[in-house]
Structures are given as C-alpha cells and as structure tokens.
C-alpha cells in the first residue's frame, strides 16, 4: 500500500490586510486575560480606554490602507477575504461605532450592572465580526463573521441580565438570530450545491456567461440567503424581533445594534448580491423591491403608533433599513452590463470575477445612507442612554422612555435637547443634515433605475415618519414638563467627570454624532465621493 502524499500548501496571508481584525481580536483577548489575571477588578476606565484605542486604531489602519493605494480589490487567504474600498470604508465606520459605543457605555455600565472588561471584550469581538463580514469574499467566512458579531451581541445584551427586560431581549434575539443563521447557512449549502463553490467571486465567475436553464436549487439558495440577512438587518417581514430587542437591550448596546450590526448585515447583502449572484438579478431584484416596500411602510406607520421613544426609534431604524434596501434594489439593466475580470498579483492563475448589475450609483447611495444613518442612530441612542440615567423608573421594567417623560427636557437640559433635535430632524431628512442627502441620493438612484413607484413610496414614508420624530421634539419642548418629579438629582453619580451635569464621555459621543450629521449635511460631497469609490470594486 503506497503512502498517499498529501501536499498541503498554506495559502499566502497578507497580514497588513488583516491588521484591523487582528487588532480588534487581540485587544479583546488581551483585555480578558488581564482582567481575569488581575488581583482585583480593573477600574472601568481601563476597559473604556482599551476599546476606544482599539476601535480608533482599527479605523486608522483602514484609513491608511485606503489612502495608500487605489482601491483595487486585494484578496488574501486564497481569495476568502478581500480588502477593497467597500470593506475599508465599513471598517472605518465600525471603528467609529466602537469608539462611540465605548464612550456612551462608560457612564452607563454600572447602571446596568455590566462588568466593564467583559463589555469591552465582547464589543471588540463583535466589531471584529462586523469587519470580517464587510470584507468576506467567501460565504463561509461571511457566516463566521456573522456569527462572531451575533454571538457577541447576544452576550452583550445578556450582560445586563439583572433586568428582566434585558433577559427577555437577549433570549428573543438569540432564538431569532440562531433561526436566521440556520436559514442563511442552508442558503449557503444550496448555492454550494448549485455552483460547486462558496467563494463569492467563484460563484460569480461560474454563473457569468453560462447559459443555463432556470436553476431552482440556486434560486431557493439565494432566497434563503436573503431571508437570513433580512433577519439581521430587520427588513419587514423579518423585523418582528427588532422592537422588543432594541427596547430591552441597554441603550448603548441598542445604538450599536441599530447602527453597526445593521451596516454589517447590509454590507454582506450588497457583496453577496452584487459579487456572487449579480447574474441572477432578475430573480432577486423584485424580491428586494418587495422587501423595500414593506419595510418602508411598516417602519414608518408603526413608528407613529409608539408611545415609547426607544421603541419609536426601533421602528424608525426599520424604516431606515427600507431606504437602504431602496438603494440596493435600484438595479439598472439587470444582468446585461459588462463584467470585468481582475487578475490579481499574488493570486497566481486565480481569476477573480467581479459582477455588475449596473447599479453602481444606487449601491453607493445605499452606502452613503448607511454611514449617515449609523452616526444618527449612535447619537440618538446615546441621548437615550443619558436621559434614561436621569429618569428614575417607578419599577425597573416600566417603560423608561415613555413620551410623557420627555416632557420639559428642553428646559432641564437645553443643549441635550437641542442635540437630540438635530439628530431626530436628520433622521426625518430635513435639509442641512446628512439624513437629507442620504434620502435624496437613495431616491435619485431609485428614479434613475425607473423605480418611480418605489421612489414615491419612499418620499411619502419619509414624510410620515417625520411626524413620529416631530412628536418627540414637540414633547421635549412642551412648556409643561410632567416628568419633573422623576428627575434624579444630577449629582447622584459622583466620581465621574461631568459637563453641565451630564457624563462627559457621553457628551463627547453625542457631540461627535451631531458634528458628523451637521458637517455631512452641509458638505456632503466628500462622503459621497468616498462611497462612490468604495463601491467601485463591487459594482464597477
């Protein structure tokens, strides 16, 4: 019996490309190690500073990579992971999200009884998952990124498990998250069965140019992938977990969930649809349009019906997901436009195919929307976190953020109310805010793709949901504050630096969000160009 020679050739690893993930995971593990070896509990600021430094470092590395070269895709690990403008822009966004979440959480952790090192480690681990999702060029790598993001998030919510609402929120998120992951995975299996590959470029290359009869295995696979990712981004009809989970989760975590987790889900969706199965866009574009209709409508209408600010923001984040879907679904000339082959140095004889459905402008509008929306969401939930600390609940699980309790906020905290107003108006899409340009771009892309009905529906729902935001603004500026009795003495939490009675770190985070919203609102050109460059590698 001859010895079977198994030659294993390790794939070339481009460490520089993987640096952001390595920084995030390394810091998470290091922090956990130090925290468990330290003779006494680490002070909270150590964890906060570690998260901030790590998030900033990952974002800076990605920014340097962005600046250092033209944004041609740079695959590594045998094509399983690719670094291109799209992944780098999202890495910067994720880094910023980590910094802001850590800042907001710093003053909120003891209120929720959450251990700072564990919180920071889980935050960084989930961010690493999000970064992997943004650059995954293989469905299995994408799945691993999705699971690192999700599993860390289940625990992040459950860390506040002293509260029944957080336990319920974590359990619901876990069950539905696991359910949707299983759908996503089954979708991968069917696509693999149909194309013989899990590599996105490989699938794209296989499908490109092959004249095939309708392949139901592939179509069912794509549908299951859409269901799985639809759950993650909370698109209607896969949204029903979102309001409960957002409401029950600690506010800093909710902000992260609504911005970064959603952005990572959309990044994955864009890459799967436009790189792997762009050829099948005649099959998936109508589904996406249907999802966009439902998501816009349900999100806007349900947002009006809410009596709780946090829940209202949860539904509004669903309606924002609808706008991003409008951008992603605006496909022009489905499947006809040219595809191009990129032969990449260092990947000898490996041809990476990038497909195109011709919707470059539309996808860049969606990316612009995601970035603009992420900062609005992070800022809004940061405000909620600050306000929640001041509103004493009669019982732990009562609705802390009821509209009535926001009455008179403008009188008690004029600057905070002003910041919240800016963020809410931006979400409503008022001119001179980033939200306005985001909505304009998305609707323009939809009109460009001759999706007039969808564009009209998007405009109508924008007006409808503006009403929901204005309700909060009116409540804050109402002359008679009914919640005065609920106001906790501002000095209750001594020992933390404060500014005008507010925790300084949260003030930083909220200012950052407001600044980005306002600056992008006045000078949208730079971010617009960045998003156009970012999608070049996906939709040339």
């Amino acid at each position: 019996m001859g010895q079977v020679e198994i030659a294993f050739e390790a794939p070339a690893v481009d460490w520089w490309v993987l640096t952001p993930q390595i920084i995030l995971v390394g810091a998470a593990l290091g922090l956990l190690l130090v925290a468990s070896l330290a003779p006494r509990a680490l002070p909270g600021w150590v964890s906060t500073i570690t998260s901030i430094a790590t998030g900033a470092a990952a974002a800076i590395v990605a920014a340097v990579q962005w600046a250092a070269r033209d944004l041609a895709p740079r695959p590594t690990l045998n094509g399983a992971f690719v670094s291109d403008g799209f992944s780098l822009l999202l890495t910067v966004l994720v880094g910023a999200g980590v910094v802001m979440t850590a800042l907001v959480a710093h003053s909120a952790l003891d209120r929720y009884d959450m251990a700072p090192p564990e919180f920071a480690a889980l935050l960084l681990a989930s961010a690493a998952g999000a970064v992997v999702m943004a650059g995954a060029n293989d469905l299995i790598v994408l799945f691993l990124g999705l699971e690192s993001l999700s599993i860390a998030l289940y625990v992040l919510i459950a860390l506040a498990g002293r509260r029944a609402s957080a336990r319920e929120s974590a359990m619901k998120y876990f069950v539905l998250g696991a359910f949707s992951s299983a759908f996503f995975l089954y979708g991968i299996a069917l696509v693999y069965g149909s194309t013989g590959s899990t590599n996105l470029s490989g699938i794209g290359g296989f499908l490109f140019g092959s004249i095939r009869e309708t392949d139901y295995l592939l179509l069912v696979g794509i549908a299951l992938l859409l269901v799985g990712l639809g759950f993650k981004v909370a698109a209607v009809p896969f949204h029903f977990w979102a309001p409960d989970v957002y409401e029950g989760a600690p506010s800093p975590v909710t902000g992260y969930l609504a911005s970064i987790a959603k952005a990572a889900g959309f990044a994955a969706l864009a890459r799967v649809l436009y790189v792997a199965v762009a050829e099948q866009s005649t099959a998936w574009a109508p589904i996406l349009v249907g999802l966009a209709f439902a998501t816009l409508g349900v999100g806007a209408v349900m947002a009006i019906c809410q009596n709780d600010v946090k829940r209202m923001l949860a539904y509004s984040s669903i309606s924002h997901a609808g706008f991003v879907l409008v951008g992603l679904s605006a496909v022009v000339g489905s499947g006809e436009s040219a595809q191009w082959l990129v032969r990449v140095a260092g990947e000898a004889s490996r041809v990476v195919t990038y497909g195109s459905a011709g919707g470059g402008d539309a996808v860049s509008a969606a990316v612009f929307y995601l970035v603009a929306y992420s900062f609005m969401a992070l800022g809004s939930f940061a405000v909620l976190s600050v306000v929640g600390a001041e509103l004493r609940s009669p019982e732990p699980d009562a609705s802390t953020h009821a509209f009535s309790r926001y009455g008179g906020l403008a009188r008690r905290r004029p600057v905070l109310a002003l910041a919240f107003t800016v963020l809410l108006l931006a979400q409503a899409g008022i001119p001179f805010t980033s939200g306005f340009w985001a909505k304009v771009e998305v609707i323009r892309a939809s009109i460009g793709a001759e999706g007039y009905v969808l564009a009209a529906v998007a405009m109508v729902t924008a007006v409808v949901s503006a009403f929901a935001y204005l309700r909060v603004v009116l409540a804050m500026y109402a002359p008679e504050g009914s919640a005065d009795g609920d106001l906790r003495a501002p000095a209750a939490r001594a020992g933390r630096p404060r500014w005008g009675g507010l925790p300084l770190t949260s003030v930083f985070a909220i200012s950052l969000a407001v600044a980005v919203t306002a600056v992008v609102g006045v000078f949208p050109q730079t971010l617009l160009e960045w998003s156009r460059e970012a999608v070049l590698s996906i939709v040339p």
Partner: protein
Amino acid sequence: MSGLEVTTGWYLTLGAMLFLIGGTGLLVRRNPLIMLMCVELMLNGVNLSFIAFADRFGDVHGHTVVLFVLVVAAAEVVVGLGLVVAVLRASPRATADDLSALKG
C-alpha cells in the same frame, strides 16, 4: 445489488426534512431547551446537505465547511444554554410565552 440505490438526493431530502422539523419545532415548542435542540437539528440538517453535495462533487471543501459549522454551533449552544439558565433561574418553569413583557 438490487432494489433501492441510495443516491445523493436521498441525503439532501433527509437534510431538508431535518431542517424543516427543526424549524417547525423552534416555532411550535415553547420550552427554551427544546427550542435550543431544534436549532441544532436545523444546523445538522444543513451539515448533511453540505456533505451530500461535497460527496457528489468529490470536493473536500464541503466537508471542511461542516467542521466550521460544528464549531459555530457549539459556541451558539454555550451562549444559548447560558441564556436559558439565566432566564430559568429568574423564573423557574418559564416558557417562551412568559417572555412577553416587551410589546407594542
């Protein structure tokens, strides 16, 4: 050999059935532990499909995928069991229907 020949299609059907049984169970059963088991059943249905496809293609890739999925499933169960314990410790005999304080 006479009679039935077991082809890839059989395994795929079995995988799909396991997935469906798991999915239905997750939606129907209210005991948190059983729901966790249903998730596992769904994932194992997918694993079987992966192996069946890999066998058909004679491709090792599908087999390696299963190893990744097993690891992820294990991690998911660790977190899931932790959550179930946290919920049950707070209110023994809780079912999924009892987790309904948040609504609107």
